[in-house]
């Protein structure tokens, strides 16, 4: 018989005998399920965080910040605002004005609904001019938008869900003034709590004369270079331009690296555990089939075919574990809300993660099957046949 025919009939034999070895088979499946489930669930944090920050990031949008700035530690002096507005490449709104929104960010306290824990959220003052055109992903869900010159706030839906004091009509004392919440909005499908107000009134409350940053819409993504050149030609401004996408990714680079490190660290340890379990189970399967294997060898099956069949069985047993693990991770953790270090996002079990999970499981099956396959190949025919 050819190798492949031997291999196939051996594999059929192994699979048909699985019912009798249910314990060992389930051990492999449960072990792989747990390892893959945990890996995928933990990786879903990183992918969820990435999805969150990049939600609504557009190729034709840029941010202008002070040179080398990170996060909200950036200033654009008020008198530099006109220069920024007149930079080349910026799209004009329907009113003929450039689509630039200046933002002035301050951090304000809020308290969690359930635990009462204090967190800080950004209160963003925005220059009102072409506001809705420059930030089209912003959509009011309730109430109205703030009126320029009044102490009025609009809060994003995640704020309302997570923290107290953001209902319409609620008043918040900020900087010695009473601010009224007049509307709720959603910004794409982001989970961040954001509260917007009129920049001018916010800056006068905070005695501030500088904006934090500016967001601008380009005529086309290709105009980035033109704008960058214009900004570089004016070093006295101490400003730099970034793609919106890069700026946001930079903001979570560290968090992401940490989350991914944790996922692979825990995932690897669990995979080692599951592999050890698989080795043990396969050894016991091979041992319980010693006589059967010896008989097969005696009637002419090659040791290579025997080893390959065991290896294949191991991989085939790991596969349902992988699928179960991915499904469990998706059922339990997909779209679960977490907010590590104040950054809220939903876990995201993506198809790419499912593929990683399956590959991970295949590796466990392959590595776990190696030694038992070798042992099966080496079963001494004569002694094994004689054994009771």
């Amino acid at each position, binding site marked *: 018989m050819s190798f492949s025919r031997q291999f196939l009939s051996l594999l059929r034999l192994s699979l048909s005998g699985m019912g009798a070895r249910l*314990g*060992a088979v*389930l*051990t492999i499946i*449960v*072990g792989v*399920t*747990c390892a893959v*489930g*945990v890996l995928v*669930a*933990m990786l879903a*944090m990183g992918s969820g965080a990435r999805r969150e920050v990049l939600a609504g990031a557009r190729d034709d949008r840029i941010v202008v910040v002070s*040179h*080398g*700035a*990170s996060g*909200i*530690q*950036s*200033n654009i*002096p008020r008198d530099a605002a006109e220069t920024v507005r007149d930079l080349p490449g910026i799209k004009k709104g329907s009113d003929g004005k450039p689509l630039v929104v200046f933002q002035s*960010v*301050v*951090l*304000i*306290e809020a308290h969690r609904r359930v*635990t009462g*824990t204090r*967190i*800080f959220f950004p*209160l963003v003052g925005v220059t009102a001019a072409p506001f809705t055109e420059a930030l089209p992903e912003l959509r009011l869900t309730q109430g109205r938008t703030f009126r320029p010159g009044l102490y009025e706030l609009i809060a994003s839906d995640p704020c309302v869900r997570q923290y107290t004091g953001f209902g319409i009509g609620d008043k918040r004392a*900020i900087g010695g003034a009473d601010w009224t919440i007049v509307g709720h909005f959603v910004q794409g499908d982001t989970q961040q709590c954001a509260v917007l107000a009129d920049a001018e009134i916010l800056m006068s*409350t*905070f005695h501030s004369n500088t904006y934090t940053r500016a967001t601008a819409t380009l005529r086309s993504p290709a105009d980035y270079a033109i704008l960058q050149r214009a900004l570089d030609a004016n070093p*006295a401004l*101490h400003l730099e331009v970034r793609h919106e996408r890069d700026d946001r990714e930079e903001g979570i680079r560290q968090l992401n690296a*940490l989350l991914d*490190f944790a996922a692979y*660290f*825990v995932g690897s*340890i*669990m995979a*080692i*555990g*599951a592999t*050890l*379990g698989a*080795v*043990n*189970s396969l*050894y*016991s399967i091979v041992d*319980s089939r010693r006589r059967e294997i010896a008989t097969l060898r005696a009637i002419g099956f090659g040791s290579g075919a025997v080893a390959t069949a065991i290896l294949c069985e191991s991989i085939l047993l790991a596969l349902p574990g992988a699928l179960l693990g991915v499904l469990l991770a998706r059922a339990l*953790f997909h779209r679960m809300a*977490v*907010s*590590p*270090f104040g950054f809220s996002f939903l876990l995201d079990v993506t198809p790419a993660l499912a593929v990683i999970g399956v590959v991970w499981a295949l590796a466990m099956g392959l590595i776990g099957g190696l030694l038992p396959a070798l042992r099966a190949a080496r079963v001494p025919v004569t002694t094994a046949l004689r054994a*009771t």
Partner: protein
Amino acid sequence: MKYLPLIWSGLWRKPARTILIFLQVSVAFALFGVLQGLKTGVSHAVAAARADLLLVHSRLSFLMQPLPYGLLEQIRTVPGVKVAIPVELTFATYQQPNQGIGVVAVTPEEGWTAAFTYTIAPADVAAFARSRTAMLVRDVVMEKYGWKIGDHIPLKLPIQRQDGSSDWAFDVVGTFTDSDIGGGRRNVLVSYPNFDEARLLQKGTVNHFNVAVTDPKLAAQVANAIDARFANSSHETKTESLRELAQSSMQAIGDFDFLIRAVVGAVLVALLFATTTMMVQSIHERTPELAVVKTVGFTDRAVFLLILAEALAVFLAGAVCGLLLASVALPVAARFVLGLSMPGIVVVLGLALGTLVALVSAAIPAALAARLKVVTALGGHRAA
């Protein structure tokens, strides 16, 4: 004690199987140790954060809204205040935009270090006070960029100097370490008077004041007194201790509790399953031997306990080995994740859990062994 050889030989009947179970238990408990270490380490770090150091910042916005330097004299007159030092925070980049450094500007007056969590050699403190352009560098920053004492380091700050440039330079005079887990790891200290004089905008303002109190018990009282002094003024303050700040920043970890529990749960389920089936398999194979053991007079109960003891031996050895691994790995991991440590309670918890899992997973196989009928077993039939 006379049963020990029996347990021992039971364990080594199939060395490969026992070693594999032992390794599996070790791996599971190493993971358990690291995850629990993360959880408890964080709460310990919060408890270790100093309650006698207060941070006075603007009530308007946490660390974002400047306060006038002039508040300092009034803060110092509040009873219970030992040292009050103005602090200005900014950031710098060294050579490349991605090499960020936190800049902390403080007034190097007599006894200023009492208001901080820094550890600085007295000679370095003295050198820092002598020169206006002096800079103390966090040990890790020093290492990362290979700076030496006496180096003149150019830094780019987002703050303009009088002449409009944003190029600053400081002289390295010493190093420091920071015991506060909330403090940045990439920080340098510079002199506030020089910094404030040299900048173009926002002169005479500070980010916050650090206050050390005379008696830690008075911390809350002093904090309230400071805030009361500035109530209804144009610069209302909010005073919080480092511990309170650590508490609120570490609350975030609480969100991971569910995930950590899920992972530990998954580990234990997989482990239970694997060991139970392995031990049932082992009992099946040992049917004739167990029958002999019973024939020579061992009671069902003794056989039951014998199997439990075998499981306990492997599990406890594995748990100890795993927790040891975790305690070796944690200091390495602590370099990436702040606040990792493994307090004794985790070890106790781990060993208790190891015992529990051993008993649960050995219960079925031990019962099988105990119920074995000697006649059928000796007849070569497997245990049912």
